[in-house]
């Protein structure tokens, strides 16, 4: 049995190498990981942008630079032109004995509040030096936005493995090689598991590489691999199902598009919806995988939570597999 699985695994590796599929599944996460590493600092620094006049009081400019990214302009016209650009930039200019705040009019309300507050503190003479506040930190260096992006990358890579299986099956169907399986000593189960093993292994290597590039060295690797492997089961089952049930590449493309919905929905609900509505995504294995990954990447995961989430992913994936088993068998026959 193992030998036959290995034969399918080896055959897929050879075909995939010819089609550069391995390169895609492995290299795409790595390239995206590099991108996240480069962009994440800029995304995290969402400090308010302020436009000020170069002729303004130096002390005023230096004060504002402590709290905002300041851009200086020679004339009021230049400054107003800057404010009117597409991004959110506010301005503070001298006006009589006081200051005037200039906005374009479509900025976020929080930004207006922030700028008003800054100028208020300046006019009240509030300084860091006379503070009564104490700041204590947990010493974390990875911002939550980066964790979110890396988590999305993990789910995308898992989905990628499923997508490629779907596409390769549709192509095997087009070339009539899939029916040939029935006249070889390899059983349908061995064919399914062998093909999945290949997609799963390559995707896991891509995920591990991406985590190393993005700097998540101190995470619990057993936990992340456990969640990755279990969530891969679902992606692979769905990939098989999409591949076998699609008559042609157009139908497979449509199914792939539909697959984005539960993934995007799971992420959106977990990140942006209040605790009272989290249950709406409990049916999605991607929700549990995303939740577990967030805790693991944030290094706040405990085995109880991870095992529970993994059990949910596995249970839901297994249910999908059982429901779709007759269809997979029919598709292979």
């Amino acid at each position, binding site marked *: 049995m193992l030998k036959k699985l290995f034969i399918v695994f080896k055959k897929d590796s050879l075909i995939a190498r010819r089609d550069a599929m391995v390169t895609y599944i492995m290299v795409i996460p790595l390239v995206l990981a590099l991108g996240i590493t480069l962009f994440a600092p800029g995304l995290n620094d969402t400090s308010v942008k302020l436009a000020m006049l170069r002729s303004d009081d130096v002390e005023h400019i230096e004060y504002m630079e402590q709290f905002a990214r300041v851009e200086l302009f020679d004339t009021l016209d230049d400054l107003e032109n800057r404010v009117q650009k597409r991004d959110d930039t506010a301005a503070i200019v001298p006006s009589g004995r006081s200051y005037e705040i*200039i906005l374009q009019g479509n900025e976020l309300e929080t930004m207006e509040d922030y700028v008003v507050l800054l100028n208020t503190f300046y006019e009240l003479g509030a300084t860091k030096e006379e503070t009564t506040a104490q700041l204590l930190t947990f010493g974390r260096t990875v911002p939550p936005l980066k964790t979110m992006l890396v988590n999305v990358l993990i789910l995308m890579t898992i989905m990628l493995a499923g997508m490629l299986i779907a596409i390769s099956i549709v192509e095997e169907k087009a070339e009539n090689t899939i029916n040939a399986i029935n006249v070889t000593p390899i059983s349908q189960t061995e064919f399914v598991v062998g093909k999945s093993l290949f997609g799963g292994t390559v995707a896991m290597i891509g995920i591990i590489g991406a985590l190393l590039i993005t700097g998540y060295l101190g995470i619990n690797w057993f936990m992340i691999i456990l969640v990755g492997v279990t969530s891969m089961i679902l992606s692979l089952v769905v990939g098989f199902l999409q591949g076998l049930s699609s008559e042609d590449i157009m139908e497979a493309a449509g199914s792939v598009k539909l697959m984005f919905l539960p993934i995007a929905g799971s992420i959106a609900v977990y990140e942006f919806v209040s605790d009272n509505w989290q249950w709406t995504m409990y049916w999605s294995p991607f929700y549990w995988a995303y939740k577990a990954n967030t805790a693991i990447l944030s290094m706040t995961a405990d085995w109880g939570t991870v095992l529970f989430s993994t059990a949910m992913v596995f249970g839901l994936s297994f249910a999908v597999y059982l429901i779709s088993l007759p269809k997979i068998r029919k598709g292979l026959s």
Partner: protein
Amino acid sequence: MKLLSSYLKEMKIAARGFYFYIEIAMAVILLAILLFAVSETSTGGGKQFVYYDMPQKIAEYLRDRSIDRGEARLADPTHFKLNPAEFEITNEETGETTAYRFNDGKTVVLETVEMIDTSTGELEETVYEVETEEDLLRLSYAEREIGVTIVMDPRGKVSNKYYLQGYETDRLKNLFYILQNESREAVNAKKDRQVVRTLEVTETLNNRQNLVPIFIAYMGSLMGFFIVMAYIFYDKAEGVIRAFAVTPSSIWKYLTSKILVILTTVVVSSSIITIPVMGGQPNYLLFYVFLVVTTFALASLGLLVASFFENISKAFGVMYGIMISLMIPGFSYYLPSFDPLWIRFFPSYPLLQGFKEIMLNGDAGYVLIYSLVFLAGGLALFLLADVRFKKTLTV
């Protein structure tokens, strides 16, 4: 005439397959999500844990005063699970580090106060009142949210201890330092006297409407790029493109008919999402012009890319790479303060901003200029694709 018959034939084939209906179903699902799961107002996701290091009665008085002023309202108590944890906390000024280790696990039930914007009534932040400072540390660490201990000394002077995660920017930390320097009354009085001038009278999109440009751009125009490639590879597998060599019809008509099928699908699915959510607010003439030219341009890009590959597996890397890179400007759309110059060179940047302007019924000039840019770019890509297909017929 040949083009029309090609288009009608392609539409008949599309209507026979599942893909066209999947597109429509997807649009209906997205519309349902927008209408039933996304609220028009922001949900105010900010959380803060607070421990009052002062007599209970004073803490209650402070909370009641905020409620009486309309700045806060009580919500149902919230349960939090505290797991065993081990961490270190560093004082930013002294650099002194203290290690903490908690071996027990427990569940705490916290008084929950919702802070609201007095002018709009919208939820700004949810504050959880913690009973001990130890629990505050554990919650702030586990939930990755800001924790504040509000200390009142015997003379009644209040000071704050902020527990931050560590990745906050220096500018934000500086703000925390000065936040409590002045009395709240003095700050509010001075705040009310600030002069704010706006340069334009502009509308803004609400929370729900703000998602429409994203859905239209990514699920419509950008998907045109992917789907046209799938169509071409399907025809390559079936040998349809090769058959064109022996027909009187020209390649450009065949390629145009493919784009027209995509356009029909995108126009129908985008209308399903846009009209019920936006009502009569957008300029629909501009909307359809922009939708058609952007879909045409991206579908032409898809045609050109498809002309270089034999099948979808071989094209997958390039296709996936282009799709992911076109999604990057979405960050700038959602985080307006993140708007570096390089991000504006991605075609999806004006795509998103253009749809946003249309939804706001705003800057028509911007939309028209970029409509011309997309049209010119689309035509150039289409011509290149035509040359490529003529030369190769199959690959």
